[in-house]
């Protein structure tokens, strides 16, 4: 049963009680970055975070059985973001994200070419094999270490490290090949 008491939302389950407000305050920004690495949209990522905590409410009966709440929440956010990514148009998201990225990093006169360069990187990232792409995207979230990444994608830590190495190498080679064609 969920109840609002003293401005905080508490899930009254047998033992121990789960303070949803504390969960939101602790993990919402991490979950937002996880979702944003996949979706590249603030609004969509925020919706995913909200969906994650709705799931928490729905699964309140089995929350006490979860050992690592942080990884569990990240995993939910990751899966929900991947699911949402299939339904939205990623090209539009990448375009606006690359423009915002260029605006933050370069002077105004170089903004267009820099935005185009960021867009090319994002496009090549999407062309990577799925496992490599997922590990590379998770590696962008600095709060997650290799062990947590391994739990999220369901692989061993060594496999995650190998995938990450291959992803960066393949991405760099492809970008250089594109640069050489120009």
């Amino acid at each position, binding site marked *: 049963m969920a109840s609002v008491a003293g401005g905080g939302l508490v899930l009254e389950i047998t033992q121990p009680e789960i303070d949803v407000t504390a969960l939101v305050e602790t993990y919402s920004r991490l979950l*937002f970055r996880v979702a944003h*690495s996949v979706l590249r949209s*603030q609004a969509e990522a925020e919706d995913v*975070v909200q969906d994650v*905590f709705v799931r928490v409410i729905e699964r309140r009966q089995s929350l006490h059985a979860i050992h690592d709440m942080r990884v569990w929440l990240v995993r939910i956010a990751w899966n929900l973001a991947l699911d949402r990514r299939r339904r939205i148009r990623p090209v539009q998201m990448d375009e606006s994200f690359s423009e915002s990225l260029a605006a933050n990093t370069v002077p105004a006169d170089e903004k267009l070419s820099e935005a185009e360069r960021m867009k090319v*990187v994002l496009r090549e990232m999407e062309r990577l094999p799925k496992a490599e792409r997922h590990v590379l995207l998770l590696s962008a979230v600095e709060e997650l270490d290799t062990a947590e990444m391994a739990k999220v994608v369901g692989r061993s830590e060594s496999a995650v490290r190998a995938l990450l190495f291959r992803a960066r190498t393949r991405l760099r080679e492809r970008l250089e090949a594109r640069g050489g064609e120009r």
Partner: protein
Amino acid sequence: MNNSEEAIGKVLAGLGGAEASPGMERRILAAIEERASQPSVAIPRWAWSVALAGVVAACLLFAITAIHQHEQIPTQAQQHVLPAKSAEGTQEALLLPQKPITSTRTPIGIAAPARKAQPISAEDAVLLREMRAPSHPAPEAPLTQEEKLLLRAVHTGDPQVMAMLNPEVRARQEAESEAEFRKFIEQSGKEDHESDQITE
């Protein structure tokens, strides 16, 4: 090479450093509280089990009914034949033909000899026999008087009668006979006048 690495690093840093809009936690909490305050419409597990059992029972009942009906339809004719084979005496008169049905379908009921034959009444037997009798043309009905006359005229070929059947010929004949009659009257009138003159 450095250029590509730098671009990759920028993109990854941009992805990792994304910041949510201010007040995200407050909005999320408000949405969750709103959802928590709504009455729960969750259906208990036992209700799902009961519903599932009901659906399974309904499906079974439907399947049994369908199979039962499917078996009954082709064996209805067989039911009437079976007593004829076992009956004696007057029942023989009510027997149906030994090949009652020439069906293209495989009769399922034949493979079920356990089905008991039921005696049929004489009225039903007649009806069934008529129903299963091969089709024949209708029996000849007696000819009417007109049909008999017509048949006789056609078969004898009497020219006078045949002519009477044709309105044109009949009208011509009547005209000719009338003309002959008038001619006869006129001739007879002249002869009477001449004989009167001679006698005078």
